[in-house]
């Protein structure tokens, strides 16, 4: 394969991939007899054109940062964690239990407790496939997918038969005490001058950014991160270096599951204030695309999460204001994943040819 300059690899490749995805999407919109320019306009204005739009974009991005980081950490150990969805839902259960059954004096303490609860539940949920992989050789891709379905069923049972308050028709928990409500961007002093309307984006965003930095430190600055990356590159070499494979697989999956679970402070604690069915709304899967697009680097994940937040919010706006069905956002996500993930070597090869010709 041709080598291309690093800046082109980091900047040019994703941009070209996105443009290609956009062109294909325009084709799809044309094919259903709608106007792609209008759609793009609606998306951009709806997602980025106002503080209100940004409030939603950032809300979605917050969840995607957590799930993207979850996939990233596992990827570095050579593990493909597709179970972010289930881990996020079980994390939500952790949040609900911590907030419903233990009284907390203030939202800050409640947030800390809920974060730990979400992380612990997500970690345990991911530890089981990890242990099965390490000890029994059950492939993590298969088991984490299976654990997604188990998580759905478990949550439904908990909501219908265990946690649902008497007399409530909806399968959901009781509302968390109002004092635990997380401040949204509207409630934060300086930001309140920008975000004048009530938006769902809340302080979890800052927890997500902190998590990003923590994951970067973990992977690239700690001995454990060194072991995770070494194991991911070569299991046999890791053994030579005295690294315990079982420990690395289980610990990495627990960290990954904890991160996926932590997204629940954003949607369960922050936005809805109670645990609902299917609370994660597919964010666990989008995390895979986010990690892919973000090149499995914690900082890349932030940028990719913003992009997917934009697609999510913009897509919703398109569904609301145009004749184009909201399902278009699934198409868009699919195209972005196709071009940034699956076809990104194609773009790199073409760029390689371009740079070689220029050098010659």
């Amino acid at each position: 394969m041709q080598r291309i300059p690093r800046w082109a690899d980091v900047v040019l490749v994703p941009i070209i991939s996105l443009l290609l995805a956009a062109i294909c999407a325009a084709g799809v919109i044309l094919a259903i007899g709608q106007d792609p320019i209008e759609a793009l306009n609606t998306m951009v204005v709806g997602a980025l054109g106002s503080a209100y739009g940004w409030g939603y974009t950032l809300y979605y991005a917050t969840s995607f940062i957590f799930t993207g980081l979850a996939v990233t950490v596992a990827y570095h150990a050579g593990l493909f964690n597709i179970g972010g969805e289930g881990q996020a839902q079980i994390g939500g259960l952790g949040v609900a239990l911590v907030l419903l059954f233990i009284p907390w004096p203030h939202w800050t303490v409640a947030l800390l407790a809920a974060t730990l609860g979400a992380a612990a539940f997500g970690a345990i949920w991911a530890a089981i496939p990890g242990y099965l992989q390490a000890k029994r050789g059950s492939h993590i891709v298969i088991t984490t997918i299976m654990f997604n379905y188990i998580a759905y069923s478990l949550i439904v049972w908990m909501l219908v038969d265990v946690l649902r308050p008497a007399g409530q028709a909806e399968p959901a928990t009781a509302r968390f005490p109002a004092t635990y409500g997380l401040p949204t961007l509207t409630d934060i002093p300086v930001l309140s001058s920008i975000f004048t309307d009530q938006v769902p984006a809340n302080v979890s965003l800052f927890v997500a950014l902190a998590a990003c930095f923590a994951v970067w430190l973990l992977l690239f600055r700690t001995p454990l991160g060194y072991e995770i990356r070494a194991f991911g590159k070569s299991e046999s070499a890791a053994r030579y270096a005295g690294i315990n494979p079982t420990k690395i697989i289980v610990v990495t999956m627990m960290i990954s599951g904890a991160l996926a679970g932590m997204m629940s402070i954003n949607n369960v604690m922050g936005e809805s204030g109670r645990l609902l069915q299917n609370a994660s709304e597919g964010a666990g899967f989008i995390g895979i695309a986010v990690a892919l697009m973000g090149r499995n680097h914690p900082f890349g994940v932030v940028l990719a999460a913003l992009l997917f937040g934009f697609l999510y919010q913009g897509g919703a706006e398109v569904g609301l204001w145009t004749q184009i069905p909201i399902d278009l956002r699934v198409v868009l996500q699919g195209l972005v994943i196709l071009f940034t993930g699956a076809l990104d070597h194609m773009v790199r090869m073409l760029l390689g040819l371009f740079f070689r010709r220029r050098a010659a």
Partner: protein
Amino acid sequence: MTQTASPAIELRGISKAFGTVQANKDITITVPKGTIHGIIGENGAGKSTLMSILYGFYRADSGQILIGGRETAIPDSQSAIRAGIGMVFQHFKLVPNFTVLENVILGAEDGALLRPSLSKARKELARLSKEYGLDVNPDAVVEDLSVGHQQRVEILKALYRQAEILILDEPTGVLTPAEADHLFRILRGLREQGKTVILITHKLREIMAITDNVSVMRRGEIVGTVKTAETSPPQLAELMVGRKVLLRVEKTPARPREVVLEAKGLRLTRGGVELLKGVDLTIRRGEILGLAGVAGNGQSELLKVLGGIARAEGTITMNGRPFTDPREAGIAHVPEDRQHLGVIMDFTAWENMAFGYHRHFAKGALMDNKTLRDETAEAMKRFDVRPLLPDLVIKNFSGGNQQKIVVAREIERNPDLLLIGQPTRGVDIGAIEFIHKQIVALRDQGKAILLVSVELDEIMSLSDRIAVMCGGRIVGERDPATTNEKELGLLMAGVNDEAA
């Protein structure tokens, strides 16, 4: 040179580039018919690329191939076979559960039915075996044959396809000295029958023993073609490396002191196969114990067990105490398989410098990467690693420089015992000299060294004591000063030494 008949092979100006790497540059070689021609060069000198061009795996960017005086295009290996070229690869291409006969006709069947081909092949094989002294039972199943015999099947395969020119790529790497001698007899027989042989190797001894002419390659170019009778190993080595090289290891007699490592009754079974059948071993301070043996006789397993990668039954003590973490116990290990065990190929030089010792570089919760980088730069300078770039990813270093980084890493920890497997595999001659010096220097500091190598030369010249392994056992111990290759070769081949 006077030539009447046209040469068997003539290469004119062959060039081949992979991206920006010029693998072959303007190669011109003439191989007269009925000679054995050696091609020698360090790893990465371009020998294999050149042979791949000749066998139709790669196409040259420019240049001509003349076979028997006629220009011949070789776009694929079928054309090479039609042109009378036969290739014996380093790693055999045989179907293990087929018989010799079935392997020989594989791909050269005459029709849809096997029986006529088989009976024709049986007759032909009998003739070839007799003519060239290639003694093989046509009905033996290949996986039951020794490596030396499997190689003969490969040669028979080529001859059955009417090869006039036989190319052998590093043919002795897997053979015992006796098997290698037998191979040389076969090759001489082929020459007498008018066949042409091209022998690719990095072993000077083989070139001197058997070839008529030798071409030396360095960095993709032919730097000289000489008559073997008119050259010497030092001259060839100098041509290969581009400077004077010390071929002998210079060392003083060993002064062994107290026992460092003691292993008793080591047994290891994997997949129902007993790889170690009760190995006892002691190594003392100030000595180099060489472990000789044909590849696959338990040396690798023994090294892995002592290095803590594999677990075996039996007891191992360091300085009289049992241990769980070999590194903590003072054992450093340069593994045989550098690229799959010794380093993480995608990590930088400095990251690899901590490999296995990364916990030592923790300062609080974080790793002290600055100290690590500085120490790496210093060690790279001391070990003459080129290029001197600690931030370069290790796969971009040559094999020799990778090995220097690994050796530096293991020696830096000041171990009591250094396990070192195939220290010079895939390492160029210049670096071999350097690594050998480091090993001897470590011994002179009073450290113990266990050396495992399939290169008998290396074992003979470095070791203070030689143990020979065969079939998962240590079958004998010799003093390098009083033993010889023949004696060791017999031990390696499993000839009992009770009588000796």
